[in-house]
């Protein structure tokens, strides 16, 4: 009896069981159980994924981060996307993956004196970059109407957006909608007059008492959005463009919170992009159609700029206020502007080193 008990204990220690081949049966059952659980989980996951977006394939859900993919994996991912988009938008869609060119660091310069606030850049950007047209309406560029030279003492302390309930502003003849404050320190309003309006709708532009301030992603050389991304899905490419791998974005919106320029947009709903308006020339890290729950932003039209073309906003600007080029090339237009014109950067004190320069003739 004692000997038998010792034998059982010894067998248990060795991972088997006493007697006749019971160990193999247990192992078999274990394997079967694990496999069944795995299959059930996968099926549930696939159903969940299908419910979220039926067009997104299983492989797409589980693909690797773009930067960690091998060349083969990248090719396969591109092929999958092209197939899906072509089917979805009923046209031949090209998804480009052109990498950054050697010896190129993109920079942008905007002549703030020339801008007439027509917003053609905004709509050209929407069209070129396949932004959601409505519900949600997404625009990567915003143009802010600013007051020109009104530095009266009475208005010095204005400059903060105030709600309907604020008595001081309610009683004021200027009304209650002050738009958003572009300049200054939020905690120190003294002397702030740089107050802007986003939703201006004049009969015609430019208005005599206004100047216009277009703002988009500043492609910071030291981007805070990249620092905070918990999944490293947004990063700065060697040519200075800050890009997003939409498939890895988890929609936490930390990048949006930290961006001092309000340059990022979030797809709260499934983007609404009509098939006939879809631009089929896309880039994986740029203007390919996005999905609900991801963040997007200006990429200096990566699908164009990496092919040596100007961005859509530069091309469409009717007054030539927008300039784009290679900052590493001493002969480039943007470099010449930086060296010779009166230049300022937006919120330069944050040390984000924006590569978007505003200049005055």
């Amino acid at each position, binding site marked *: 009896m004692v000997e038998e008990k010792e034998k059982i204990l010894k067998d248990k220690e060795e991972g088997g069981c006493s007697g006749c081949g019971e160990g193999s049966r247990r192992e078999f059952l274990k394997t079967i159980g694990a496999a069944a659980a795995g299959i059930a989980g996968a099926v549930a996951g696939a159903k969940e994924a299908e419910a979220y977006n039926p067009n997104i394939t299983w492989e797409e859900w589980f693909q690797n981060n773009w930067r960690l993919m091998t060349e083969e994996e990248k090719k396969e991912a591109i092929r999958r996307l092209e197939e899906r988009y072509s089917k979805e938008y009923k046209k031949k869609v090209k998804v480009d993956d052109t990498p950054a060119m050697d010896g190129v660091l993109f920079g942008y310069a905007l002549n703030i004196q020339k801008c007439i606030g027509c917003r053609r850049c905004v709509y050209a950007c929407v069209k070129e970059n396949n932004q959601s047209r409505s519900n949600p309406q997404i625009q990567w560029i915003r143009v802010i109407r600013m007051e020109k030279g009104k530095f009266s*003492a009475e208005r010095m302390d204005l400059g903060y957006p105030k709600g309907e309930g604020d008595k001081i502003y309610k009683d004021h003849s200027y009304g209650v909608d002050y738009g958003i404050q572009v300049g200054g320190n939020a905690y120190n309003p003294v*002397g702030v007059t740089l107050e802007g309006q986003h939703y201006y709708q004049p009969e015609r532009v430019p208005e005599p008492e206004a100047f216009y301030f277009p703002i988009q992603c500043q492609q910071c050389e*030291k981007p805070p959005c990249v620092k905070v991304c918990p999944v490293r899905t947004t990063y700065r490419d060697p040519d200075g463009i800050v890009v997003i791998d939409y498939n890895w974005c988890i929609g936490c919106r930390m990048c949006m919170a930290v961006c001092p320029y309000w340059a990022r947009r979030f797809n709260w709903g499934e983007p609404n992009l009509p098939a006939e308006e879809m631009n089929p020339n896309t880039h994986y890290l740029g203007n390919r159609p996005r999905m609900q729950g991801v963040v997007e932003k200006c990429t200096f039209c990566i699908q164009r700029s990496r092919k040596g073309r100007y961005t859509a906003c530069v091309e469409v600007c009717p007054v030539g206020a927008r300039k784009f080029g290679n*900052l590493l090339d001493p002969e480039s237009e943007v470099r010449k502007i930086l060296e010779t014109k009166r230049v300022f950067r937006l919120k330069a004190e944050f040390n984000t080193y924006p590569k978007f320069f505003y200049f005055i003739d």
Partner: protein
Amino acid sequence: MDKERGKKGVDPSRRALLKGAIAGGVTLATVGSVTGLAAKAVQEGKTVTGARLVGSLLVPPGDDDARQEAIMKKKEYVLMTDEEKKELIDLLVRNYKAKGSILL
């Protein structure tokens, strides 16, 4: 009362004196700081006729150019100097050569 005093070994009159002194000190400090703040508010304030302090610069009334200049200096629309431009270009070039390791 005497019993209590004996127990704790504290002279109530001394306690009362200390209490009064502390309360007086607090009141004085409060009044002082409020007065100081008020004076500062008046100094930085909204007087149309008087000079106005923008940051560390005292701007004379009615001089819009000076006022604008002061605000531009105080706020972020500060034009880059030639030196800053050179430094920036140099930094961007160096950062590019170092594969972004200098600034990231």
